[in-house]
């Protein structure tokens, strides 16, 4: 099995080193198996042919060759075992996958191979020893020894008989006849001997002396039985005769005849009276082929037996060596097969585990190459299919994730957009969850209701249970109670000593299944709208008043003047009375005209013509108008104009009117130009300040005084038409101021100065 990437993918790192294809090749394994069988067959053949092998080879090269083979096999087996056990140990130390399982499997397979092999080796060796002991058992030894003794004894008896006969002849034959080479006499004396020997022969030699040379022999007589085989050679007799002459004693020899028999010869020297050899008699007897063969067979059997017995140790060693070699080969084969099987079993599982780990790590393009078509191969195929499915699913998931991410980004962008809108809109939005807890509060709501982040997550009843928010409680309660439909209600809250008019709309949110999911409270600050409505109403009133009142004023004034002129000739008291009354009428009419003019101005106030202008310069040009008024008074007019003010787009005349109205209002608040000193001893002071608020993009102008100030409850009413704390005047000054500032896109607020007094803040957008 092989780890490989899917086509087109990067090659993964392989674990376990390069694959040993040679050892895993079935053909190689088949050849190795056949080779092993051949070796085993050779060993068995060798063990079967030990009797045919020459003993020196058997006990030398063969025996030590087998021992060498055994030693080599033991070394190889030890090496294979040590190497694989070391590998297993290293794998277990490294905590390789399936190392313990493989170790157990190898141990089990080795135990299955080694234990039976060792038992067979021990028992087989014992059997060989017992068998060898039985080969050389007593009865066999006795029988063979007896047979050989009989054969040998028979042979020796025949030789003894020949020797006795030869000795008798050597003593009885006449020396003179020999010396005289009297063959006829000698022949007559010995011609009967062969007959008594049955198949026998007698040969007589006489010595021949040659000066300067050793003695030689010359044949005198040779007689033989007629039945004696003719394939004997005389040279043999000559040789044994010569040996007897040379040694001076009897000599024997045996001649194997071509006819199958054996010719036993005994040569005895013939001596004269002085003991000098004068000749040699050779007596021969034919040993029949059958007897010779049987005697030789007995001897050969004995020698074969004795040869085996003598070489019992080496032969036993050979058998045990062969057996040991066979056992070692089987053991080595079994060991290798066990290791191979363990590898074949564990490697696919190990590779599957590694593959699963790689896939778990995200390498979904990994594929395993199946080496077999068995169940493990099917498992590998299933694994590859699983990997392919996972890869496909992963790709789909990646695509879905990418799409979802894209949509999430869109949703997030939309959410941020909505949040931005919600934060920027002037409408306050508060969301409650299904349990009535505050989920979100946008900036406008926080600003309108004075809430902070601490309100998030708290129950709405707690958040809106605050005293200044009590007016919202009914709306919140209905939302929390999940009363269906939208609840719209206009509520007025006292915020920072002023009234805030809110249009509160609570909507219960429901899911697709109709289950409640919370509520949304929408708050619209309708205070400017109400103010505008009021101003519009007052402008309408002012226009009507100006129209309805101003028209009759002139006839009234003219009528009063006419009355005064008419009564110019009347008695003095009457004229005085008339004059007093007409003057009062004319004065009040004039006052009404002024009042009507202010109404008319308020009603007909034109729209501003905005042009870039320097607010500081405008202030510097306007404030000197009060120089004459304040010159003899006690009121100080201070200017704290900020530097680097940007230009503002304003209608200079209208803003000048704003400045004048605010300064007039401050002057009135202080009690007029001749205002007394302040209770703390300080002089009455009016302060005009400008500053650029770059963060808000506005230029702020403040006009403050250190007068008695305005009660908080009246501050919001200051900008209402016809509201005056002075009890005189039209009460339109601050209303006109607010209208001008609003129409410039700015705003105006009134606050409390410290330690006393009132401060008006006008914000105009920077150009």
């Amino acid at each position, binding site marked *: 099995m092989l780890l490989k990437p899917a086509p087109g993918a990067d090659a993964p790192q392989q674990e376990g080193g390069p694959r040993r294809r040679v050892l895993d090749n079935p053909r190689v394994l088949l050849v190795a198996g056949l080779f092993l069988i051949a070796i085993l067959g050779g060993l068995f053949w060798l063990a079967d042919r030990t009797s045919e092998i020459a003993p*020196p080879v058997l006990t*030398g090269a063969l025996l030590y060759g087998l021992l060498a083979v055994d030693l080599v096999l033991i070394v190889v087996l030890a090496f294979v075992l040590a190497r694989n056990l070391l590998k297993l140990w290293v794998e277990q130390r490294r905590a390789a996958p399936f190392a313990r399982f493989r170790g157990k499997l190898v141990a089990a397979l080795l135990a299955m191979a080694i234990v039976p092999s060792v038992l067979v080796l021990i028992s087989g060796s014992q059997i060989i020893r017992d068998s060898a002991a039985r080969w050389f058992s007593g009865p066999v030894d006795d029988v063979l020894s007896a047979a050989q003794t009989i054969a040998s004894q028979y*042979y020796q008896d025949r030789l003894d008989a020949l020797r006795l006969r030869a000795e008798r002849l050597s003593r009885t034959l006449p020396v003179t006849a020999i010396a005289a080479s009297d063959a006829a006499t000698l022949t007559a004396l010995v011609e009967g001997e062969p007959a008594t020997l049955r198949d026998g022969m007698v040969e007589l030699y006489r010595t021949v002396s040659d000066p300067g040379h050793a003695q030689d022999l010359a044949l005198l007589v040779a007689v033989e039985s007629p039945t004696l085989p003719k394939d004997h050679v005389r040279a043999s007799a000559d040789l044994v005769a010569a040996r007897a002459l040379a040694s001076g004693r009897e000599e024997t020899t*045996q001649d194997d005849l071509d006819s199958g028999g054996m010719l036993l010869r005994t040569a005895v020297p013939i001596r004269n009276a002085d003991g000098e050899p004068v000749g040699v008699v050779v007596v021969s007897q034919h040993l029949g082929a059958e007897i010779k063969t049987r*005697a*030789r067979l007995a001897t*050969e059997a004995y*020698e074969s037996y004795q040869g085996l*017995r*003598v070489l019992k140790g080496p032969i036993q060693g050979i058998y045990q060596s062969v057996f040991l070699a066979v056992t070692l080969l089987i053991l080595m084969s079994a060991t290798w097969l066990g290791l191979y099987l363990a590898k074949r079993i564990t490697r696919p599982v190990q590779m599957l585990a590694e593959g699963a780990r790689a896939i778990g790590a995200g390498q979904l393009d990994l594929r395993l190459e199946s080496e077999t078509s068995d169940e493990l191969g099917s498992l590998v195929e299933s694994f590859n299919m699983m990997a392919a499915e996972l890869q496909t699913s992963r790709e789909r998931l990646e695509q879905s994730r990418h799409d979802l991410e894209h949509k999430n980004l869109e949703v997030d962008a939309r959410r941020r957009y909505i949040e931005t809108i919600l934060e920027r809109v002037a409408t306050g939005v508060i969301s409650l969850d299904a349990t009535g807890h505050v989920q979100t509060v946008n900036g406008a709501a926080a600003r309108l209701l004075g809430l902070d982040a601490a309100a998030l997550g708290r129950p709405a009843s707690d958040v809106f249970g605050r005293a200044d928010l009590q007016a919202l409680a009914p709306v919140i309660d209905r939302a929390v109670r999940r009363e269906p439909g939208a609840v719209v209600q206009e509520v007025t809250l006292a915020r920072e000593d002023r009234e805030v008019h809110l249009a509160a709309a609570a909507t219960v949110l429901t899911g697709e299944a109709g289950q409640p999911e919370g509520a949304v409270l929408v708050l619209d600050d309708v205070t400017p709208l109400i103010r505008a409505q009021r101003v519009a109403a007052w402008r309408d009133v002012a226009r009507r008043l100006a129209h309805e009142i101003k028209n009759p004023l002139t006839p009234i004034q003219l009528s009063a003047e006419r009355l005064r002129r008419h009564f110019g000739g009347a008695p003095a008291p009457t004229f005085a009375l008339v004059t007093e009354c007409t003057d009062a009428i004319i004065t009040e009419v004039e006052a009404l005209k002024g009042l009507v003019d202010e109404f008319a101005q308020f009603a007909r106030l034109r729209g501003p013509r905005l042009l870039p202008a320097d607010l500081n310069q405008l202030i510097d040009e306007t404030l000197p108008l009060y120089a004459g008024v304040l010159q003899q008074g006690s009121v100080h007019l201070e200017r704290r104009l900020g530097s680097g003010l940007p230009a503002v787009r304003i209608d200079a005349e209208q803003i000048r009117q704003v400045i004048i109205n605010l300064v007039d209002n401050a002057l009135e608040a202080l009690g007029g130009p001749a205002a007394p000193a302040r209770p703390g001893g300080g002089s009455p002071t009016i302060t005009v300040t400008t500053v650029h608020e770059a963060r808000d993009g506005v230029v702020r102008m403040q006009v403050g005084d250190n007068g008695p100030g305005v009660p908080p409850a009246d501050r919001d009413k200051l900008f209402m038409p016809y509201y005056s704390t002075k009890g005189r005047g039209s009460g339109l000054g601050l209303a006109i101021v607010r209208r001008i500032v609003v129409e410039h896109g700015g705003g105006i607020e009134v606050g409390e100065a410290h330690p006393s007094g009132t401060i008006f803040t006008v914000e105009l957008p920077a150009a």
Partner: protein
Amino acid sequence: MTARRSFWSAALWMSLAASLAAVAGDIKVTAVVKDAKVSASFTAPAAFTDDARAVMQSGLVLTFTFDVELRRPSGVWFDRTLGTVVAASSVKFDNLTGVYQVSKLQDDHVVWSERTQDEAQVRGWMTSFERVPINPGEALEPNVEYYVHVRLHASPKRTFSLWPFGHDDGSGRADFTFIR
């Protein structure tokens, strides 16, 4: 060569041979150097063990193989072998006739053969070699030490060692200094 010169030469070689006779291991070796030719006489009476006799009496051919080497010792490396000869003696006993057939070989050539029924004579023949010539292959250097090393291998053996490599049944050595 005059008689006088022959006498002194023979005397020299006899004394040299006597001095070179050494007893080393189980084989008594005598190196004889004559006319710059080396021959070795050796006898291994202990080689004819009971096992060897048992092998012989069983009718198997008993062979004593003597590896005779002429060497020049080296102090730093293996001794240099100048010449070798393999001398062997074998005996075949005929249990039927009681005759021992003894043969002697040198370098696989039969140089002597004899029959006898005397076992003592067989022992002597099998274990004694006289003047086995060793061809050194090169001329001996004067005043240089040499030695003749003889190793015996008997076969077949009745016993065997579990260690299959390098096992001799006997060895002997005779050192000599070649003097021209």
